């Protein structure tokens, strides 16, 4: 992997790590509303000597609050906070007074990780079906290939929406999340399935597989010891490179109001808040998730272009 790839991987790891430690790196809970500070611009940060200080507007000028590091509040440890009644909004607030920096981090958790989980699910379903089609062949193969081709022929967003329509709308967030993952997995299985099918078909004809059958090996033995070992790495690589598409699927669904609903802080819902007329002109800091998405997308593209040994066809656009 060349330098560009390593840089991209580094940035991606940092972003994912930040998302993982969202609770620690964010001074506030994502749903906490600071009503008096609705649509506040990002807080000015200055250096007074050696202390980092937040400068807030106050009646008759400004008031300053020093930043406290590594404090423990009732909801755990935080890297940095500011004593009440001071506030530190690194990326401003939205119309309900919610800190955008905290929502960005927690939203990263939702959007990035559901992208990863959905990609894994699609990879798993694709592997099982691809093995059925490639190893057992016959009518299994015909059915799986035909259905897969239909899925692949449709525009992905139409397919996603169609699958989403099958899901109930109001249920506990956990149910909705698993439902969303299932929907994305169902929309995304054909590509890995095609890959696995091709591999299984060719591996099945190898001399050593036939010899194993001659020795008396059953299907389970052959699948686990001869077919799956080379299949896993190929699927893993495929899944990793497909993650950005699944992240975009979650963000798009949430943007359209069909993903996790408020007050969940997906980057999609945050973008939907930005896409309103008053927000676009009046509160440009609400575009932070767009910048974050662009960065993530750029990094994945850099990764893709630097390290493909098996360069497949044109990947779908974000």
């Amino acid at each position, binding site marked *: 992997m060349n330098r560009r790839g390593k840089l991209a991987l580094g940035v991606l790891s940092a972003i994912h790590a930040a998302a993982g430690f969202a609770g620690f790196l964010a001074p506030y809970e994502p749903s906490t509303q600071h009503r008096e500070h609705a649509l506040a611009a990002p807080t000015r940060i200055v250096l007074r000597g050696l202390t980092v200080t937040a400068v807030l507007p106050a009646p008759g000028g400004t008031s300053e609050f020093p930043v406290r590091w590594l404090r423990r509040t009732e909801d755990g440890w935080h890297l940095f906070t500011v004593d009440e009644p001071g506030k530190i909004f690194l990326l401003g607030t939205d119309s309900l007074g919610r800190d955008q920096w905290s929502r960005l981090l927690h939203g990263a958790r939702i959007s990035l990780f559901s992208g990863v989980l959905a990609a894994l699910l699609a990879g798993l379903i694709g592997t099982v079906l691809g093995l059925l089609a490639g190893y057992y062949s016959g009518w299994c193969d015909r059915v799986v290939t035909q259905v897969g081709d*239909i899925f692949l022929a449709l525009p992905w967003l*139409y397919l996603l929406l169609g699958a989403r329509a099958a899901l109930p709308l109001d249920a506990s967030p956990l149910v909705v999340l698993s439902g969303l993952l299932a929907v994305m997995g169902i929309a995304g299985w054909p590509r890995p399935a095609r890959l696995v099918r091709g591999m299984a078909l060719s591996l099945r004809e190898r001399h050593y597989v036939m010899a194993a059958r001659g020795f008396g090996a059953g299907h389970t033995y052959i699948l686990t010891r001869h077919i799956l070992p080379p299949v896993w790495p190929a699927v893993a690589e495929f899944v990793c490179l497909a993650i950005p598409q699944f992240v975009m699927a979650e963000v798009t669904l949430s943007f359209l109001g069909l993903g996790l609903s408020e007050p969940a802080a997906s980057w999609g819902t945050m973008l939907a808040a930005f*896409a309103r007329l008053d927000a676009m002109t009046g509160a440009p800091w609400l*575009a932070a998730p767009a910048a974050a998405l662009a960065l993530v*997308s750029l990094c994945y593209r850099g990764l893709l272009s630097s390290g493909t040994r098996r360069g497949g066809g044109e990947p779908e656009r974000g």
Partner: protein
Amino acid sequence: MRFLLTRALRGAGLVAAVAVLGFLMMEAAPGDFLTDLRSSPGIPTATVEQMQRDSSLDRPVWSRLVSWIRSLLSGDLGVSLIWHRPVADLVWPRACNTALLSLTGLSGAWLVGVPLAALSAARSGSWVSRAASLLVSALVALPDLLVALLVLLTAVSTRWIPVSGSLAGAGFALALIALPAVYRHTYSSMRMAMGEPFVESARAHGLPPVRVWTGHILPAAAGPLISLLGLSFSSLLSASLLVEVVLGWPGLGPLLLEAVAARDQHVVLAGVVLSAGLLAAASLLIDLLLVLCDPRIRRDGL
């Protein structure tokens, strides 16, 4: 001609398969648009039962599948469960709008992308070529949603483009999204055509460069270019859905969105089937263009 007929049949087959598969998937889904009503305490069970009978959701699956196929063949797409109007009336004008938008966006992308790519291919290494490829790389790295939002932002803040409901704004956004693919495909087709032996010989004969381009390179590049572009129509439709929602164009997108939110299965299914239909129609158009452009295909088939 027979070749076109086979392709048309293939497209029709796809639409039919999507219709059947979509219907079955809707059946397999837990609950339907009545579920939310059922669990709501204010609505008596009798009313829900009546609604079920009215939308004939109480008949067994296979009987509904058969009547669905029958009605599809006669052009009847059922009745919308929430708007109580024939789905075809709702969906058809929207589909036309989406087709209009797609064509506009694609034409915009072509009008800018093809000349730009041709120029870059002809003078590779020049500042034009480098600037163009930089722009394209930036565009392709951005997800479709972000490009649409960017255009919206520009429209709102500068008022150069009308903000909502105009073909110009939506078409511009779609053109930007489609531009990288058009540019890249054109560029590579041109480069490939430039390397063909008959081009070398045309040059060697002393033909002026313009003649070499219009007479030899462009026709040779046209064929592969058109078929490559046909493959990207599917992602174009997805992008147009997003653009329609973000920039307020009354196509299939916003309709589908509302239907999904309300779980109006008839409209959703019709929307998905129509998208497959649009795709099939576009593929057929592409094949027609190919046949017209490349006499070899007329002779030997693809």
